[in-house]
């Protein structure tokens, strides 16, 4: 009975103290260890949350894709997302640019480029088309190696 009460008290205090963190402007991402504790990054709950994150295979979510034409009339794209995992996720992306006939535009700049998304944080990357002919794009991703 005593043990049970102790565990309940312990768990209760974790929730009480972890609950002190207040949500803020989403444009500012405050890393674990810098901000106040939450359930996800509390020293006691973190290993369980981490294990769950790994088991659930949490990764990145794409939140927003926007494109525009710059002053030179060349198309640019910005991809924004969120890394739900409790560890830094590195991945590579490759942008293929398409002309008005849907044909791929050959370019030296069409290569795999790396992004590092911090744990439970937002990330973004931008890409610029090789010429004014580009009207659309396709983006592929893969796990980063090495």
């Amino acid at each position: 009975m005593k043990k049970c009460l102790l565990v309940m008290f312990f768990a209760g205090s974790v929730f009480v103290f972890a609950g002190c963190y207040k949500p803020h402007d989403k444009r500012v991402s405050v890393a674990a260890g810098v901000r106040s504790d939450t359930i996800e990054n509390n020293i006691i709950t973190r290993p369980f949350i981490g294990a769950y994150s790994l088991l659930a295979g949490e990764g990145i979510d794409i939140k927003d894709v926007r494109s525009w034409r710059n002053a030179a009339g060349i198309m640019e794209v910005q991809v924004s997302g969120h890394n739900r995992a409790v560890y830094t996720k590195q991945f590579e992306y490759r942008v293929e640019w398409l002309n008005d006939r849907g044909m791929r535009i050959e370019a030296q700049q069409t290569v795999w480029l790396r992004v590092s998304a911090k744990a439970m944080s937002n990330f973004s990357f931008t890409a610029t088309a090789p010429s004014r002919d580009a009207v659309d794009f396709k983006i592929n991703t893969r796990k980063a190696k090495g």
Partner: protein
Amino acid sequence: MKKLTLLFIAMTFAVGCEKVTKIDTTNDAGKQVMALDYRDFDQAASETIQSLLSSGVLARQDGGKYVLTTGVITNDTMQRIDTDLLSAKIEEDISNSGQVVMTSAVGGKDSNRDSMVNDLRDVRDSAKGDEFKQDTMPSKGTLIAPDLSLSGKIYQNNLRYDKKNQQVEYYFQLKITDLKSGLRFWQKEVLIGKRGSNKTVAW
């Protein structure tokens, strides 16, 4: 003699069985190396080209095209690198962007120039010049001088990371200069860092 023959046959087979594979340069998932390989040049060129096209410095206000030459790109690494591995990619993409025209009349190194531009003019001015139909020869004052120059350097910095590992940093620094005014219109640095065993060599 028999043994020697058998040994020769065995060696021939052994050499013949060595596996050689072609690199899938589009989706290469091969291990990283401490020295610079083609993937590093791809990355540096891609980031440079995108920065340059995004900056808008190549778009002329009057709708025309700038004439660009490649000046000197210095190899300040411990590796024997032909800097054309970088500049050729950049030149290709910015030419194809339709915003600039490259010139082969002047350039920072031989590979950026086409010696025939001057050779043909030497022929025109020599006795052999009369052998050619004169209206097919380039007249004086027909070459177009470049407006802009692309130059820069590749720098390598080796550091001791810990007892067993080293850190190698490669800096690709490029800039575009307006040749009339000497003003620098654009510049970009791409850093590629690698960490690995001291046993691997970075040159």
